[in-house]
Structure formats: C-alpha cells, structure tokens
C-alpha cells in the first residue's frame, strides 16, 4: 500500500475515533463572529447501523465504578427432573430479567452459569445498593395464575384497583403454575404456524378441563406475577386430555418467550445467594477520579521518557501513542467493554506495552545504524527485524489474556479484555502508524 494511502486511512480512523470518544453532551457553543451569532448545543449522535449494531457510545461502567450490587444465585434444582433443568434455569433468567426491568434498573445483567453440577445466575444491578429490596425482587418464586372473564355488570362491582389490574378477568381460578408440567414452543403439524404447547399434570388436567368447559368461546387470561404473558387466548372447545395448544399468529421468537415465561411459573426452583457484593457509588467515583489521574500521569511520564530517550523518533512514537489511546477508548465504546477498576489498570499497563514495540524497533534501528546502514535502510531494517520478536512476544500476552478470560468473572474478564484490546491496537499503532509517519517524514528529508 502506498504511504499516502496509509496516511489517509490513519487520519480517517483517528477522526472516527475522536468522534466516538466525544462525550454525548458537548459544551455549549456561544460566541459572536462579526455579525454571525452562534449559540448551539452540540450533541454527538448515537451509532445506529440497523438492528444488529446500535451503540449509544457511552462508556459502560462496572459495578465497582458506578456502584451497585452483584449477586450470584445458586438455583435449587432438587425438585426438577434433570431433563428440564436447563429450561428451568432459562425460565428463571427470564423472570428475573423481567422483574428487574419493571423495577427500572438501567442495563441490568442477568447471566446463567453452570459450574460442575451447580446451576447459577449472576445478576448485576447498577445503582441498586438497597440489598433487601433487590433480594426481595429476585428471590421470590414467580406466580403463574389463570383468570376467567366476568360480565360487564359484575366487573363494574369490583374495586378500581382490581379493575385496573385485571380488566374483565375478575374471576380467579384454582389453576396455578404448580399444575403446569411444562410449556414448549413448537409448530402446528398441519399449518406450520408457531405455537406454544402446554402439558398439565393430572391435577392440572382436571382443573383445566373444568375451566375450558365453562369458558368455551371466551378468553382466559394467563398472568405471571400479575402481568399478562400474552393476549388472552380464546377457548375453542373443552380440553380434557391435559395437552393444550395456544396459537395466535405468533412468531417463533414470541412462542419461545411465552414458553419461557410460562415455565418460570411451572418450574419453581428456589434460589439462594452464594455471593453478593455491594459497592457504594461514592467509592466508585473516587476510584474513577484517582485512576484517571494515575492514567494521565502514567501516559505523560511514558511520553516524556520516549522523547528524552529517542529524540525525534520518540516524538513519532508519542504521536502513535496518542492515536493508540484514542482508538482504544473508541473500541471500549464500540464493543462495548464494561470498564472496571482492574480494566483501567489493564489499560494503563497496556500503555507501557504499547511503547514496547516502538522501543524494540528503535533499539534495532540504532543497532542497524551502528552496523553502518544509512538512515532510511536502518528504519526499514528496524521494522522488519524487530517484527518476529514483537509478534511472538505479544502472542504470549494474548494467550494469557484468553486464559484470564476463562478463569475469571466480572472484573477479571474486564481486565483480560482491556489488555487484549490494548495489545492488538498497539500492534497497529506501534508498527503501521509509526512506520508510516517515519517513511513520510524521513524520506522527504533525505531525498
């Protein structure tokens, strides 16, 4: 690739990175230029490339920075048959996510994890430090209920509260989640339409037969924690076999979601907390301020050191280091990587490693010059000869990053990811960017 082309690419990447790095609210522009008055609030737009890639381009702060609660829940699967366990875990994940969403936690994390024979859920609630409230929200078993509709005249008699909550479905039935064996998404054998299949246990089969016999032609509401699971389906005929199919123009995604919600009431698996961490927001803010200061100081020291040690070469390395910082931050926002304290440390450590490639190259250049090559040839030889060392040594760091990612959860993973991104970007900036700068400026001078 020609040098001019590379300069263009580097320039475009840097501009794009600066754009991504900007905070969403820029300072207000307010000035007067001759007769032109400017008074505008500038905002950086979010990134939207269709469904698959939408980013608000905000830095995601981990719990140790933003404050909040981390919970690891152990799921008691003793009453659930081994075949249904992963479904029960998914159902539990669904129900907890739903509750947390209703509670209004921003960007909650609800992950499933299987450790040996243990089924676990990891819940991260940013900003929530009232533990009892959070545990109450998560710990209770989901209540699946079925309700029948009543006439308008009867519906008018109930309290406003109840009317608001249940609408026309004012009659409670004795059928609950305990009577449902399992719900599965499937397809109608004749039409191929996505459906949800319900299987009741023997007690549930009887209750369901009674209810459907009473309600032919009428809708039945299915609620989870008093929230409707779907539009109330209408009973076509009495169902006595315990096997029920619900159809209604669903998509496959919808039937999967409905089945998961129904299962969370049907497969009641109690949870208990095996790990819990709550960090106040003040502690987090102090940590950010201190780490950013440390990062800025570290960056400055490295920049000055490179300049002192390598003179003009160091200047190019510093320029590459600035581009490096801009690119890494942009990637943090784009991927997005949740930033933790350990992650910031990983980033600061990667600054040191980022200049390592430059140091390797510059030291090699010095040697080549000493061996009598001219400056331009020494530059090229420096890059070419140093490359195997740079490649092999960084590969070993990436291997440890992969193992770290496997080893850890939360903060450790954040550290591994930031370090890995740092190493990869540093390969680009220390080699390609620095070489392009050097070729451009050095060849202009000596020819």
């Amino acid at each position, binding site marked *: 690739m020609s040098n001019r082309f590379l300069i263009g690419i580097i320039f475009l990447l840097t501009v794009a990175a600066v754009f991504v790095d900007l905070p969403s609210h820029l300072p207000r522009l307010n000035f007067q230029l001759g007769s032109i008055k400017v008074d505008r609030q500038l905002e950086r737009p979010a990134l939207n490339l269709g469904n698959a890639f939408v980013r608000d381009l905000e830095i995601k702060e981990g719990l140790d920075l933003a404050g909040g609660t981390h919970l690891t829940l152990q799921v008691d699967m003793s009453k659930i048959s081994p075949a249904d366990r992963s479904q029960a875990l998914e159902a539990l994940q669904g129900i907890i996510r739903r509750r947390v969403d209703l509670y209004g936690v921003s960007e909650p994390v609800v992950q499933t994890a299987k450790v040996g024979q243990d089924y676990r859920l990891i819940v991260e609630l940013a900003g929530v430090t009232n533990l009892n409230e959070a545990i109450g929200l998560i710990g209770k078993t989901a209540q699946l209920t079925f309700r029948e509709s009543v006439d308008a005249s009867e519906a008018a008699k109930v309290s406003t509260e109840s009317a608001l909550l249940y609408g026309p479905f004012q009659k409670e039935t004795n059928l609950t989640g305990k009577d449902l064996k399992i719900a599965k998404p499937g397809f109608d054998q004749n039409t191929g339409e996505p459906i949800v299949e319900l299987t009741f246990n023997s007690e549930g089969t009887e209750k369901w037969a009674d209810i459907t016999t009473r309600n032919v032609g009428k809708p039945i509401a299915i609620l989870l924690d008093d929230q409707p699971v779907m539009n109330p389906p209408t009973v076509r005929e009495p169902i006595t076999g315990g096997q029920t199919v619900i159809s209604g123009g669903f998509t496959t995604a919808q039937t999967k979601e409905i089945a998961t919600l129904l299962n969370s009431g049907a497969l009641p698996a109690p949870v208990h907390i095996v790990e*819990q*961490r709550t*960090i*106040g927001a003040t502690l987090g803010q102090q940590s950010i301020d201190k780490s950013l200061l440390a990062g800025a100081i570290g960056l400055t020291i490295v920049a000055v050191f490179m300049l002192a040690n390598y003179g003009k070469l160091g200047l190019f390395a510093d320029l590459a280091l600035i581009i490096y910082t801009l690119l890494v931050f942009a990637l943090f926002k784009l991927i997005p990587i949740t930033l933790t304290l350990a992650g910031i440390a990983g980033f600061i*450590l990667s600054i*040191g490693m980022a200049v390592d490639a430059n140091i390797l190259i510059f030291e090699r250049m010095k040697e080549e010059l000493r061996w009598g090559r001219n400056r331009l040839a020494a530059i090229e030889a420096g890059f070419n000869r140093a490359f195997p060392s740079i490649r092999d040594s960084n590969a070993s760091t990436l291997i440890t990053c992969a193992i770290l990612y496997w080893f850890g959860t939360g903060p450790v993973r954040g550290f591994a990811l930031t370090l890995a991104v740092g190493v990869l970007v540093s390969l680009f900036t220390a080699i390609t960017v620095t070489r392009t700068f050097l070729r451009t400026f050095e060849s202009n001078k000596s020819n």
Partner: protein
Amino acid sequence: MFNIMRFKYLFFAISLLVIIPGIISLALFGLRPSIDFTGGTLLELQGPALKNQTDIEKIKETIQHGQVEVASIQPTGSGTYLFRTKAITPSQKDKILADINKQLPGTKDIRFETVGPTVGKELTIKAVQSVALASVAIVLYIAYAFRQVPKPYSPWKFGIAAVVALLHDVLVVVGIFSILGHLFAVEIDALFVTALLTIIGFSVHDTIVVFDRIRENLQKYSGKQNFEQIVNESLLETLGRSLTTSLTVLFTLLALILFGGQSIRWFVVALFVGVFSGTYSSIFNAAPLLVLWEKK
C-alpha cells in the same frame, strides 16, 4: 566484550536470596486469603464518628454482640475501615448497622460483600488450574514459535527455560505477598490471581524477546562462536530494550500505586514486583539456564 555469563551463578544466587525467604514465609505463615477464597463478609464503613481506636472497638463489640465473629479490622488509609466477619445476610448487616448508628451516628456502609464457601473453593481450584494451564500453553507456544531453531538446539529447551523463568517470577511474587501478608495483613484475592497471570504473560513476553535474538544470532554466527558467546552477545544487544521497556511499564505502574485508587493498590503492587522480577529472570535466569543446559 563484557561477559554476562561469567556471573551466572551470582544471578541465580540473587534470585534465591529473594525466593528463599519467601518460601520460608510461605511454609511458616502461608498466604492470607481474602473472602474471595475463604468465604465470609467484608464490610467497609465510613463515618464522621469513626476516628480512633475506641470507636473501632465499639463497632467490633456491636458486631460481636450480634453473635457475629469479627476476624479482622483494617484501616484503608482513606478514612474508612474494613471489617471481615463470618458470612452474614443483608438483614443481619442492616441490624448491626442500625446498632452501630445508635452509638456512632452517621456511620455508613460503602461496601458490603459476602462470598459463600463453595464459591471460594471453586476460585481456589480455578486459580491453580489457570496458572498450570498458562504454563503449559506457553511451553507449547514457545516450542512452536522456536521450531526453526537451528540443530542441534532443541525448541523444547527454550520453552522449558522460559517456564522456569516464569515460575521464578510467580515464586517471587507469591513469596513477597506471603511476607507482606504476615507483616502488613495484605490479603490475596481474585485480583491477585489476575496479577499473577498477567505477570506470567509479561515474563514470557520479555523472555521471548531475548530468545528471539538468540535464535537470530544462532543462524548468523553458527560455527564462528560457541553457544555461550552467542547467548552473551544476544543478551547485551537486547539489554537496552529490556531495561527501557521495563522502566516505562514500571513508571506507569508506579503512577497507579501512588495516585490510583486504594482498592486496587495491592493488585498494582503485585504487577510491579512481577514486572521487575520478569525482566530480571528473562535476562539473568532464562538465558544462563539455556547455556548451562547446552553445556551438559
């Protein structure tokens, strides 16, 4: 030319001077595992009324009055105190905090962590597994990366020498943290394991740079110089780079130790010690070891 190899036994002795006290401390006192490994509760309290030892004793009594054993109390250096206790539930904690506030109003909990015993045990197993896995992966990787080392030198010797240097660094850091744990109650947690693995990566990073030069010089000077001379020359050639890189990394880490947050301070100290040891072992242990081995 300066002959580094002449002093190889001195270099090994210096390493042992650091490692042996560490091993003795490990044998006598072990490490101080945090609740990450043992399970239990960590409570960080802050408040205007928290000033002197009597206040802290009051809190300790209040906690123990609630039938909860207090394992240790530690000031953090930024005006807050860390209490380690047996695992307690959030409602127990709320009750204890309310009791404390009766005597010392305005006391707040800014961190509250509880780890169950099973989770702690898993972390221990995983930590050992990942250090072992990292070592094996690195031997394999180096043996692969150095497969073109000219005969009769074996790529496996390069890999194993690198891992010996790496274990040296792990021992140095673990030993020093055992001593720190005994003297200053420094605990090792999940982040410490993270630091260890990062040190492993960095140590090998350094060793590879040195070995890479040995490989290049073996091809260049094969037949003209003996192995020891080639290694010596390679070390001298890469010395500038090794020192410069380590200094930049150590500078940035020092900035973090001095100005960074208190909660990751010991993590960064572990990295600092490890990076220092990693550079030392790459130059003064891994390469001399190769020479010793080839001589036999």
